[in-house]
């Protein structure tokens, strides 16, 4: 498909990338391109400049700290996460990444691109929110660290503002996690999804029901508490060709329960 004219640059460092992004407010970072390029094909959005992050090594790779904290470069692909020994420290990451779309997309698509796009149907925004990830955002005034709850601002909108770049995602240790989704065909687009983490308190994050992942904190991990918490969230999800608003509301509740059950199992196991 035919894109509108666009400038392209391939910086080799975060500093170079930031310089380009700051210089032109029409510039957009190009990560895996598995979302952005498609939106550009429709010409629904057309950046003036693409700043290709694929040449920046410091944005890649997964490190596992002594305390079990994972530090993931935003340009790490789903496939790399699936295959990474370090990432096994938080098993749910690889498991969910392996369910995203297909081999080709997993080979190019990145964790950073997935969370920064924050398409309501994406798998990772609710997941990273559930596991309590923090986001390192570099801008002209240095690096700031944003917790997941403040990271997602809207559809295609995150705390990473114009002239800024997501440089790192850190995820604490833990194994009591769960993820559940109803998708459009196997490994398809999420109709609704939910991620849960019971490392310490019970934390459930619902996807596809609002512009941003919705965090709910059940008092306990039993089905009733989880259902009550989801009902308490007063969801008013959008309806579309794949699901009415009511159906999404219902799925949110069911999937939350399932995600929590898995999380509890994993925590115990």
């Amino acid at each position: 498909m035919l894109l509108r004219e666009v400038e392209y640059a391939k910086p080799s460092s975060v500093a170079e990338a930031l310089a380009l992004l700051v210089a032109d407010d029409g510039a957009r970072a190009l990560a895996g391109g598995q979302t952005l390029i498609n939106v550009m094909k429709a010409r629904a959005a057309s950046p003036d400049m693409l700043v290709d992050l694929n040449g920046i090594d410091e944005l890649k790779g997964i490190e596992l700290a002594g305390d079990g904290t994972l530090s993931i470069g935003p340009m790490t692909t789903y496939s790399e996460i699936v295959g990474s020994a370090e990432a096994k420290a938080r098993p749910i990451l690889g498991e969910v990444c392996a369910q995203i779309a297909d081999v080709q997309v997993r080979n190019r698509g990145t964790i950073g691109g997935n969370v920064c796009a924050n398409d309501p149907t994406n798998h990772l925004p609710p997941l990273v929110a559930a596991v309590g990830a923090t986001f390192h955002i570099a801008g002209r005034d240095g690096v700031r660290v944003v917790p997941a709850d403040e990271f997602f601002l809207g559809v295609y909108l995150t705390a990473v503002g114009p002239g800024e770049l997501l440089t790192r995602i850190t995820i604490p240790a833990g194994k009591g996690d769960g993820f559940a989704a109803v998708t459009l065909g196997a490994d398809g687009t999420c109709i609704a999804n939910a991620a849960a983490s019971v490392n310490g308190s019970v934390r459930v994050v619902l996807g596809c029901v609002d512009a941003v992942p919705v965090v709910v904190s059940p008092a306990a991990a039993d089905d009733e508490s989880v259902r009550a918490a989801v009902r308490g969230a007063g969801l008013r999800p959008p309806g579309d060709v794949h699901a009415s608003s009511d159906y999404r509301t219902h799925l949110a509740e069911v999937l939350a329960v399932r995600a929590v059950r898995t999380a509890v199992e994993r925590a115990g196991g």
Partner: protein
Amino acid sequence: MNVHGDRMFAAPRAIVWQVLNDPSAMAKTMPGVESFDVHDDQHWTANVKIPLGLGGLRMKIEMHKSEEREPEFAKMAIKGTGVGAMLNMETSFTLGEAPGDATSMAWSAEVKIAGPVGSMGQRVLQPIVNQQVQHVLGALEQQVQEALGPSAA
């Protein structure tokens, strides 16, 4: 899709009315306004770039005030044309006097979006529209406060 709601302003109805009918004030409430022209009291045009994260969506917006009953009711037809999308919006508000010199505003908008963006699916569009509406209302609040002047602060 239809979006509607109620909002309270801690300001007399006359002030709110004045803001809502002042093009320059309204310009400040719209997302990503790049330029704004007033042709007459009924017709304004604006060039906006609605922030969409992946790259702004440029639109030429034409506003036509089709009905007005000072100081409580006005109706507007808004037509937006951009390459990715066509926007047609019928919006109206009713201002009521509330206790404590406050003003209640009941607003509603019938939004129709066509073009590639129109096909993006409600799960994406509805949140975007809601978000832009919240943005406008927030900015409106601010304009009303400014109109009240420092005395109100």
